[in-house]
C-alpha cells in the first residue's frame, strides 16, 4: 500500500497548501461585514470545469495508484510470479500515444492563437492517433494470448491485461470529450468555450500519457 500512501501524501500536500491560504485561523465570530473587508477565502479564479477535471484526475490517479499497490504487493505474496515478455508492439504504441499528446498540445497552442484550421487538424490528429493506440493495445493483447499468456495463467499476466484495460478505458472516455471538443470546433469560430474544452482535453491526454509511461515502465522492470 506504500504507492497509494505516497500518492495520497502528494494530494495532502496540495490540499494543505490550498487550506493554508484559506485563513483557517480566522476568528469568524469577530469578522462581521462584507466580503471585501477580509482578504482571501473567495472562490478560485480558475473555471469550475478545470477544477472539476483536477479533482477527477486526483481520483483516477488514486485508482491507478491502488492498482499499482496491489501489483507490488501481489508480486511478493507468493512464489508464483512469472514475469512476462512484453510484446515489442508496446514500444510502437507508446510512440503513438506520445504523438497523440503532442497533437493535442499543438491544438491548444493553436486555440490560444485563435487559428482554427490548426485547432481542427490537431484535434483530429490527436483523436486519430489515440484510436490507433487503442487498436495497437488490442493487437498486443492478441499477440500475448496467441503465445499462451492469458489472464488465468499467471498473476503477472492477469495484471498486464487488467492494467492495460483500465488505462485504455480511461482513454476511451477521453475520446468522448474529444469528440465533443471537435463538434465545438466544427463551425470554425474560436470561442472561450472551445479554448477551455481543448485545454481540458490536452490536460487529460498528458495525464494519461504520464500514467502510461509509469505503467509501461513498471511492466518492463518487473
Amino acid at each position, binding site marked *: *500500500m506504500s504507492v*497509494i*500512501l505516497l500518492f*495520497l501524501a502528494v*494530494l*495532502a500536500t496540495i*490540499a494543505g497548501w490550498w*487550506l493554508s491560504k*484559506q*485563513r*483557517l*485561523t*480566522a*476568528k*469568524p*465570530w469577530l*469578522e*462581521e*461585514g*462584507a*466580503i471585501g473587508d*477580509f482578504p*482571501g*477565502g*473567495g*472562490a*478560485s479564479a480558475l473555471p*469550475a470545469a478545470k*477544477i*472539476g477535471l483536477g*479533482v477527477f484526475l*486526483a*481520483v483516477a490517479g*488514486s*485508482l491507478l495508484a*491502488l*492498482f499499482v499497490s*496491489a501489483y507490488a*504487493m*501481489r508480486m511478493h*505474496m*507468493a*512464489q*508464483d510470479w512469472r514475469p512476462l515478455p512484453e510484446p515489442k508492439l508496446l514500444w510502437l504504441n507508446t510512440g503513438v500515444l506520445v504523438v497523440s499528446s503532442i497533437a493535442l498540445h499543438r491544438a491548444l497552442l493553436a486555440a490560444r492563437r485563435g487559428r482554427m484550421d490548426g485547432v481542427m487538424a490537431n484535434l483530429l490528429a490527436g483523436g486519430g492517433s489515440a484510436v490507433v493506440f487503442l487498436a495497437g493495445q488490442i493487437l498486443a493483447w492478441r499477440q500475448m494470448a496467441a503465445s499462451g499468456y492469458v*489472464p*488465468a495463467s499467471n*498473476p503477472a499476466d*492477469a495484471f498486464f491485461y*487488467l492494467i492495460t484495460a483500465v488505462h485504455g478505458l480511461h482513454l476511451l472516455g477521453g475520446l468522448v470529450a474529444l469528440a465533443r471538443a471537435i463538434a465545438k470546433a466544427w463551425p470554425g469560430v474560436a470561442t472561450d468555450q472551445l479554448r477551455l474544452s481543448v485545454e481540458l482535453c490536452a490536460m487529460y491526454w498528458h495525464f494519461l500519457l504520464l500514467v502510461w509511461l509509469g505503467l509501461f515502465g513498471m511492466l518492463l522492470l518487473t
Partner: protein
Amino acid sequence: MVTVLQARTRGMTLMRMPLTVWGIFTATVMALLAFPALFVGAVMMLLDRLLGTSFFMPSLVEMGQHLQHSGGSPILFQHLFWFFGHPEVYIVALPAFGIVSDLISTHARRNIFGYRMMVWAIVAIGALSFVVWAHHMYVSGMNPYFGFFFATTTLIIAIPTAIKVYNWLLTLWHGDIHLTVPMLFALAFIVTFLNGGLTGLFLGNVVVDVPLSDTMFVVAHFHMVMGVAPIMVIFGGIYHWYPKITGRMLNEALGRFHFWVTFLGAYAVFFPMHYLGLLGMPRRYPEIGETSFVPDSAATLNAFISVAALAVGFAQMVFLFNLIWSLSRGRQAGGNPWNATTLEWQTPETPPGHGNWGKELPVVYRWAYDYSVPGAERDFVPQNQPPARRATWEAAP
C-alpha cells in the same frame, strides 16, 4: 466538492460555512479517494470469479475438487477493502458530526463552542482516517509489527474526535436548551457516539482486540458508533429540515414517541451484545450449538434483543406515517420555525422555489452561529443580515 470550492455565494468564506457543509465537503473528498479502493478490490475479485485469475484466491479444495486457483492472497483483498472501509466509517460520521453541531447550536440558542477547532478536527479526522485501516486486520495474519503502528494511529484519531465531543458539551453548557425532537435526537447522538467510541478504544488496542475479534462485542461497538449514532443524526436532521422542505411541521407527539422507542430500543438491542461478546459468543452464527463458554441464558438474551428490534422496527412505521401524514395535515411551519441563522432558513419562499433565491443571490455578512448575541434585537442574527452599523449608516440620508 466543486460546488463548495467554486459556487459559494458572495461573503461565504470557508470559515463562515455551517459545520454541516464542512462535514459534507470533507466526506466528499474522502469518498472520492476511498471508493477507488473498493472498486479495485471488486474488479479483481470479479476477475477471480469470471476469468479464473488468482489475485485473491489461494489454492482451494471445494467439494473434493482442487480449484485451478493458486497463490492468491485474501490479505491483499482485506488491505484493499479496509483501505476503503475505514475512511467509509468517517464518510458516514463526518456529515453527522457537522449536522449535529448545527442542531445543537440552533436548539440550544448558543454559538457553537470552538468553531475553528471543530473545522480543524473535521479535516484532521478526514486525513487520519486513511492511515488506520489495518486495525480491522489484527487477526488476519498480516505482519504483527503493523499492529503497533495502526493501534497508535487509531488512538491518535481519538483526540480530534474527543475535541468535538467536548465542544458539543460546552455548547450546551449554559445554553437555552429547547428539547425539541431534533434536539432529542442530537443529544441521543452524543451519548451513543460516546458509548460506541469508548468501546472503540478497547478494540483499537491489539491485545484487547485479539480475544474480542469476531465476537458480538464488535457488532455492538460497530452498531453503536456507526449504525445507531449517525442514524440518530439523520432522524434529527429530518425533523429539523422537514419544515423547510415541505412547509409543514412534523407531528410533535408522534415524533417524541418515535424518538423514545428508537433511542431506548436501540440500547435494548445493542447494549446486551457487549455482554454476549465478553462471554465469547461469536458473530455470524445462526445457531451456536453447545459450547463450554456460552450459557443458555445467552439464548434468552438473544430473544430479548429480537423483541426489542421488532419494537424499534414498529416505531419506524410510525415515523413513516408521520412523514406522509404531516405532508398535508402538519402545522404550517413558516419560513424559519426554529429561528435559525443559516441561509436555507432565509429563502423568500418555503418550500424554496427553483434556484432557492429567485433573481438575487444572498450576500453573507457573518458566520453561521450568531445566537443570543448581546445587544441584538432577537436571539439570532441571520447570516445574510447586514451589520447594524452599516444599516444605520445607509439609512441616514
